[in-house]
Every structure is written in C-alpha cells, then in structure tokens.
C-alpha cells in the first residue's frame, strides 16, 4: 500500500467530503417530504398560516421565513427571523383593532 493511501486510510479522508454526504443530506429531505405526502400548495398554505400567526405577535422578516422537516426524531422547524420586537403597547393596539 502506498504511503499516501495508508495515511488516507488511517485518517479516513478528513476534509475530503465525498459525494456520500451530499447524497445523505438530499435523501433525508426528499424522504421526509415523501413520508409527509405534502404537496407544494399545502406547504405554501402551512407557511402562510404560520407567518400570519407569528406576525400577530412579532414583526418578522416574511421573506426569510424557512420551514424545515427533520428526520429522526421527526420534527417541523420554523425559522422566522425577527425584524424587531414590538413594544407591549404596539402589540396591545394591534390586538384591540
């Protein structure tokens, strides 16, 4: 065995991320969608509902709201970047209207 190969075996290709990592990441996403059986429209509806709900309490950057589905343990995560926290007064006014 060549010295280079030996070192590579020992260290197991540190730093050289092969395509397997990419395959696994892509599969995890696609399999999660397959399992949920959600259509693009249903997903968009979910996104809209969540955005509306959060917007009632916090000013969020609606352009950057992201929904992710994680495998084991299965979870839906929503990332909604906050533009600025509303003051208590503003929030009360909104609720009253």
């Amino acid at each position: 065995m060549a010295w280079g190969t030996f070192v590579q075996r020992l260290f197991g290709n540190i730093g050289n991320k092969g395509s397997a990592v990419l395959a696994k990441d892509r599969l995890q996403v696609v399999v999660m969608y397959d399992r949920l059986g959600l259509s693009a429209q249903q997903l968009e509806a979910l996104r809209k509902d969540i955005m509306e709900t959060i917007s009632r309490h916090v000013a969020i950057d609606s352009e950057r709201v992201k929904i992710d589905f994680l495998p084991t343990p299965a979870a839906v995560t929503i990332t909604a970047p906050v533009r600025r926290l509303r003051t208590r007064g503003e929030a009360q006014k909104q609720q009253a209207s």
Partner: protein
Amino acid sequence: MSGRAIVITSGKGGVGKTTATANLGLGLARHDRKVVLVDGDIGLRNLDIIMGLENRIVYHLVDVVRGRCQVRQALVKDKRFPHLALMPASQVDQKEAISPEQMRELVAQLKEEFDFVLIDCPAGIEQGFRNAVAGADEAIVITTPDVSPVRDADRVIGLLQNSMGDPQLIINRMAIEMVQRGDMLDQQDVLDILAVHLLGIVPEDDEVIVAGNRGAPVVLNDKSRSGQAYGRIVRRILGEDVPIPELNGRGGFLHRLGKLFSRR
C-alpha cells in the same frame, strides 16, 4: 406444517431482488429446509433463468390460479437440491391476471408443504406489488446504496408497515472502496434514513454476473464474497446470531473521532 412466507421487494427495479431470492432460497435449501421460490413478476419472469431452470417449465402460476393444473404440476424441482422448487411466473399474462386474494390462497397452500415460501416481487408499487405482498408474513427489502433505490425503499417500507409490520433490510452491491473514498453511502447512512433492521450487506461482486450466466446462484460459490454474504444472511434468517462484518470502513480511527465531534 406451516412455513414462513417472505416477500423480497424493493420498489426500484434492478437492485437485485431476483438474485437475492434465488440465493436465499438455495442457501435455505442447503440447510435442509424445504423451500419454494415463487416468481411474482408475471409477464417478466426471470427467476427461472437465474436459477438455471428455464428449460424445465411446463405450467406456471397463472395456470394454477386459473385451475388449469395442480400446484404440484407447476412446481419445477431443482435436481441439484431436492428440497428446492420453483413456481414460475407466466410470461404471457399481465399483472392483473391474478388478484391479491388468489395469491393469498396459493401461498397459504404452499406454506402447508414448505418451510419457506420466498416470493420474488416485481418492481413498482402497483398491482404486481400488491399481489406479491398479499400472501406474505414477512418482508425483506433490498436496496443498493444509491439515492433512487434508497428513496424507493423508503416508500415501500412505508407501504409494508401498514400491512405487515417492519420489514428487514439487505443492502446490496456495497462497493467498499467507494465507501472509503466517501463517495458511497455506508451502512449507517442507509440505516439512518430507512430506520429498519439490517439483515445483511452484500458486497459488489463480479461473481454475481458469472453466476447468472451459469444459472448457478453465487451462494453456491463459497469462495466468493457475495456468496459468503448470502450464506451469512441465510443463517440469520434461520435465527442464528451471525455478526455483520464491518464493510463500511469509511472511518479510520481519527475520522470517526472527527465525525463524533462534528455531530450537530
């Protein structure tokens, strides 16, 4: 007597269902179990040619279901192994020629006479799949470590879980060198995605093609890596505790350590 009916399935075509069915069947027969292989791929029969029995077919599965012959008349005995028989598929009919109910009856009948009824499922998840699965008590899902077969395997696992509980998994055609290079999913990657019990791993091996050419499945070749792998899987099916050899080998020690720390 009531045998075990096991369907071998995958969703994706070309990943090795028929080859696996032939090898598991022969392996079980070598352990003195009475085995019948049922070719569930009506219209595209292949188990006969893989087994080297293509010249001995008189009647087939659809003939039996239609009452054109007795079960015994359709079974092709393997002269090399008196414990092994093949129920060939029809080459002229469509998948719709039989119903899941008829398949269930046939398999129940076969279970009375054989220890193992192995059903080779066609690709896809339509009628042919529903027929092949109908009579089975257990399922083995075959995949290769590529993106599309793994995705399809996940679909099939979902469908099987609805009807008969968790299937077991065989990962076929694992190329150790590619795994070491980081260019092929290893066993843990596949299990992380599919989350089922691993029955075994069959390494990529040219001998499988040679075996197909000869009509003598690779499990008969004790020197071949894939034949040995099938031999171990057979013993696991029979309840022996046979460890799965570490084929993934992506990790040198330090790589594993690195992976441990880089976990999210």
